[in-house]
């Protein structure tokens, strides 16, 4: 915390002209087969380009499920999802792929390909754009991609580890590789599921600052799930909070009473 306190809150990002929202979710519901209660219940919100949104909620409140549903990595049960103006739920697979290639996704469990090298994992970030077998692993990729991936690794401070196998990393290192993979992707929108959970304090702040820089300079949009209220306060423009699968709070960060957020985490078991 002490560390965090010394970082200034970044200036608000210039909001773009109020065009169509980047992401609109309406009436989204999802229940896993086997689980008794639905995990998400008519969730709805809408996010503008260039916004940085923090998704808060207790353990098991449905944050990861929500992010997954937006890209149809998990098939929602009901509801409508508009992403970049396309209706995600009715998209044929080719268009869905091209849509996904423009959305970065940082998973809570990182989901690296363990037996490949760190560099190969980062190169995968470009696979949605180039759709070329050369991107399957670093040994086959052209020099151009390898260098770009290497620069992304430098960005997260892992360039020394480029040749290391991805399952021989520490928890924070593998988190960083997942972030580098997303940087490689140069996405228009990033879903990040607790992107700083395994990072040390400095790295966490640097990472969030990096994202903020991208949002500002490339007009990228960022939605991140987090348990770190400090991060939410410093790096989000807007807070959406889930409780037992429902949106219970959705307002600009300035209007959020962080002291009062405790209730969010109190009501729920699990």
């Amino acid at each position: 915390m002490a560390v965090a306190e010394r970082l200034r809150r970044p200036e608000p990002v210039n909001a773009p002209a109020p065009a169509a929202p980047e992401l609109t979710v309406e009436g989204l519901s999802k229940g896993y087969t086997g689980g008794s209660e639905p995990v998400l219940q008519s969730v709805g919100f809408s996010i503008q380009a260039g916004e940085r949104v923090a998704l808060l909620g207790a353990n098991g409140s449905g944050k990861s499920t929500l992010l997954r549903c937006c890209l149809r990595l998990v098939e929602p049960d009901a509801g409508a999802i508009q992403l970049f103006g396309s209706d995600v739920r009715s998209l044929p697979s080719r268009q869905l792929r091209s849509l996904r290639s423009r959305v970065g996704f940082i998973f809570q469990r990182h989901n690296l390909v363990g037996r490949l090298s760190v560099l190969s994992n980062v190169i995968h970030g470009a696979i949605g754009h180039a759709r070329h077998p050369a991107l399957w692993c670093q040994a086959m990729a052209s020099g151009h991609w390898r260098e770009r991936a290497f620069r992304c690794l430098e960005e997260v401070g892992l360039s020394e580890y480029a040749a290391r196998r991805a399952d021989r990393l520490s928890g924070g290192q593998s988190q960083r590789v997942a972030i580098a993979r997303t940087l490689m992707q140069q996405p228009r929108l990033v879903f990040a599921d607790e992107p700083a959970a395994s990072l040390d304090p400095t790295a966490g702040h640097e990472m969030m600052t990096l994202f903020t820089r991208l949002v500002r300079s490339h007009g990228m949009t960022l939605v991140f799930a987090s348990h770190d209220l400090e991060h939410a306060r410093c790096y989000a423009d807007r807070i959406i909070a889930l409780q037992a699968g429902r949106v219970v709070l959705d307002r600009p960060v300035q209007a959020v009473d962080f002291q009062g957020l405790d209730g969010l985490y109190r009501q729920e078991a699990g």
Partner: protein
Amino acid sequence: MSARASRASGSLPPRLPGTGLLGFAAYLLAAVVVIWSLADSELSVTRLANGVPEIGRLVGEMFPPAFDRMPSIGRTMLETFQMAVAGTFLGVLLSLPLAVLSARNLSPHPALYYLARGLITFCRTVPDLIWAIIFVITVGLGPFAGVLALMVDTIGFCARFFAEAMEEADDGPPEALRSLGAGRLDMIASAVVPATLPSMIATSLFAFEKSTRSSVVLGLVGAGGIGIELMSAVDMYDYRNVSTIILCIFAMVVAVERLSASLRRRIL
């Protein structure tokens, strides 16, 4: 993060790390062997294509399937089924400890590892015929000898694949069990087995299916079985019954496979 980046040493890693000259030579050798083998086997697509119409003739001889021997086929099938169940069951049971001994990450001692590996390999290397003869002169003609022969067959196959599944399993959960002070057996039963169960089910049911089809082993011990029935139909050029028997075996194999798939789906 740029502050770190400037300090970060390192440059683009080589495309093929750590292969070295020896590794490269090995790859080259493998490629040469494959090409040499392919070249020597007189592959020819035209020959293959030209011959295809001929196949029609053979298949024509098989249709329509004859059903005159259905009762006898059914009876043999049941007999085989019983022996296969017993043989595979015993084989899988014995495979489990052998697999543990011959899995690199679980074996208590390298000597045991090599011993168990050797034993399993031996089960496979000694041909069925010899095993069958050995068991027949040991316990006499009859189902017991058949069951033993199928058991050895199963061990040679299952123990090997069980061991491999165990080696591949994620080592996180077993590590957790070790950290709890669990013994080897506890660790295997509560972490390794759950992780490898789907693969073991697939392997075991494959072994069962293999046992049911296996003609050599059972034929020798005078145990008959559907495989022998099939062989003798082929020997008699009785192709319409051949196709019937193939269809029966196919149905059985598909049933076993569906069973395997549904068991696996539950636990995957």
